[in-house]
């Protein structure tokens, strides 16, 4: 047992050493990401000292950019399941080579999610109050306690699957199905549940009609399955260009179909929601009206949401047309879809529920520079993490790193 552990640690060490290898472009990329992460760290230090008053949040709009990013990223994390299902359930070979990259993305993204929740806390020093059995965990009543469990659980499951499978490739052994298959199937169930639980976080609040709609969870899943695989397409395009790892066009086209179908569903569900809101035109439409058209002369989110609508529509059209079989247009469609969904599901989902307040007051929310910097920091750190994961894994997957090979093949 200790021998196995020692070998495994040595394996991780050898992979880690690889992250110090690369040409200047790689180092510049890493430097840029580190710089971004440090900008965030610096802004967060200021937030720690001064308090959340460095943000644009208020008693009226008590959640902002942090929770918006969190919501979007939980979706990205859940999206790996769209690769896992074809590969492990249908045993479709097409995505075989890329599924592990999707799972690695999940790990990095969940770390980002956890960071976004942490920076949103007023008392991060009291994090231990949330640790089951140590603190006082309001489970199963509080949806947030469910979120803590599903996020950390999903992180652990994916870390295990990635670590184990990559290690087996390294050793040249066939992975034992008992050690990963149950986890893979668990992860499918779990992926759906992390995003559902995140949706329920909002849906369960009767005092916020904008969120209190059953369609939120399905919308979350559909948009997640658009943005996540879309992001993966972009990643794979880069991986294909800068590493020796083979990513087939067929795999990219398979991902395109996933993004395509999910995008259609996303737009359809969005349409359903908009119809219900605006056709009914009850008092509860105020938040949606604020979001899309502004309310009583306040238009803070209007440019954002119409950008998102334009991007989503453009992405949908591109994805429906055969032109997106060309990788360049596919890239464009993915970028548009990701940005569109990031706005719509982040700012567009979180902020309007607070405007107007339950007492009818309109207090708008404008993120501050420090807030943007913290978000930039977490995104940079997440990308840094994902780059490191890829840098560690790809030489193993290509066969360049084996127990017998020297560290620098």
């Amino acid at each position: 047992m200790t021998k196995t552990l020692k070998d495994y640690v040595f394996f991780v060490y050898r992979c880690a050493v690889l992250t110090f290898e690369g040409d200047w472009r790689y180092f510049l990329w890493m430097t840029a990401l580190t710089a971004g992460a440090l900008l965030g760290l610096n802004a967060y230090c200021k937030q720690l000292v001064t308090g959340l008053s460095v943000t644009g949040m208020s008693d009226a709009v008590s959640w902002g950019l942090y929770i918006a990013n969190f919501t979007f990223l939980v979706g990205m994390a859940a999206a790996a399941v769209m690769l896992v299902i074809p590969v492990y359930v249908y045993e479709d070979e097409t995505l075989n080579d890329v599924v592990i990259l999707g799972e690695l993305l999940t790990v990095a993204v969940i770390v980002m999610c956890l960071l976004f929740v942490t920076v949103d806390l007023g008392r991060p020093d009291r994090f231990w109050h949330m640790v089951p059995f140590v603190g006082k965990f309001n489970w199963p009543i509080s949806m947030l306690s469910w979120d803590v469990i599903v996020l950390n659980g999903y992180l652990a499951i994916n870390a295990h699957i990635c670590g184990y499978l990559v290690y087996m490739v390294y050793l040249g052994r066939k992975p034992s199905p008992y050690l990963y298959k149950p986890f893979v199937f668990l992860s499918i169930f779990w992926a759906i549940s992390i995003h559902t639980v995140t949706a329920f976080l909002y849906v369960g609040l009767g005092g916020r009609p904008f969120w209190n709609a059953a369609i939120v969870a399905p919308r979350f899943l559909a948009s997640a399955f658009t943005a996540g695989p879309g992001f993966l397409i972009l990643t794979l395009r880069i991986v294909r260009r800068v590493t020796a790892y083979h990513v087939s066009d067929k795999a990219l086209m398979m991902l395109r179909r996933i993004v395509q179908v999910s995008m259609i569903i996303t737009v359809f569900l969005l349409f359903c929601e908009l119809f219900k809101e605006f056709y009914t035109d009850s008092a509860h439409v105020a938040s949606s009206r604020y979001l899309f058209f502004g309310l009583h002369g306040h238009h803070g989110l209007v440019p954002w949401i119409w950008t998102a609508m334009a991007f989503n529509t453009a992405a949908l059209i591109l994805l429906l047309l055969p032109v997106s079989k060309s990788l360049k247009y596919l890239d464009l469609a993915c970028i548009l879809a990701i940005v569109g969904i990031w706005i719509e599901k982040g700012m567009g989902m979180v902020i309007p529920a607070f405007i107007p307040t339950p007492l009818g007051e309109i207090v708008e929310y404008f993120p501050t520079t420090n807030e943007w910097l913290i978000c930039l920091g977490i995104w940079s750190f997440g990308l840094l993490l994902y780059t490191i994961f890829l840098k560690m894994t790809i030489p193993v997957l290509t066969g360049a790193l084996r127990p017998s090979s020297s560290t620098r093949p």
Partner: protein
Amino acid sequence: MEEERKPDESCAGAPEGGGISRRAFLGTMAAGAAAATAAALSPLKDIADLPTLEQFLQQHYKELTPADKEAILERIRDEVQAKYGVRPNLTDPQPLPGVEFGYALNIGRCVGCRKCVYACVKENNQSRNPQIQYIRVLQMRKGSIDVESSSHDYEGEVPKEGFYYMPVQCHQCRKAPCVKACPVEATWQEPDGVVVIDYNWCIGCRYCMAACPYNARRFNFAQPDLPKEDLNADMGYLSNRPRPKGVVEKCHFCLHRARNGRYPACVEVCPTGSRKFGNLLDPESEISYILKTKRVYVLKEEVGTLPRFYYYFDL
């Protein structure tokens, strides 16, 4: 690992293409990154409210033994004395048996003068800047109960023609969404119906604020600022002791007064006598009388929170 590092050293001697060697490069980068990190962390030197080990390890209110609690009360007395120069009368009054608090507000009498707002601020040691107020008075159009057409920032002489006034504060709901939301049980409902917050347990996630249909909860976005001379030294642990930065607070029916048999500050200050308070379980109390004889409604009944805060009218 030394032998595996060899290739590094071999190229250290012969950099190609006019570049610098990998080893020198990594070293420089590490130094640069370290310098930048140190600079990034520099704001931390100004941190003033780092929790002491005792504060950090303090258990949840419900887990405290009487001895623990007394030690904590003593510690807070010391902290308050050090900061405000007054030794507070800090206690932890317990719920009274056979008492469930209820509140009624005469919507026909309220003139919207906001005295309750400031009596509350004074009684409960709220931060003055950033400003925290538990009570929000809505100026409503006559003929409408839609809060969206209300004004919160009216000024000058009141009552104004064509308007009526509806103050809102924590409704101490029987089915409190905030209590359900809290991931760490830092807010809960006491046997006398008051929803309280353990300011030393709240993690500041603000999920309760998102959950509250009455916008009754306030967050300490910065270190609360309370002038020394404005401190109310009569304090309760779960009510008006000074709060730290980064936690949520709200109306608690002046727990330190109510549990000692007294009326909340907002009741005593109201110049029109629109505010009524008492024991719902006592059939003789004024609150029971109002519920029996007046036309009573609760705000946002459709949300199903079952508030203990009622609005009534008799005009």
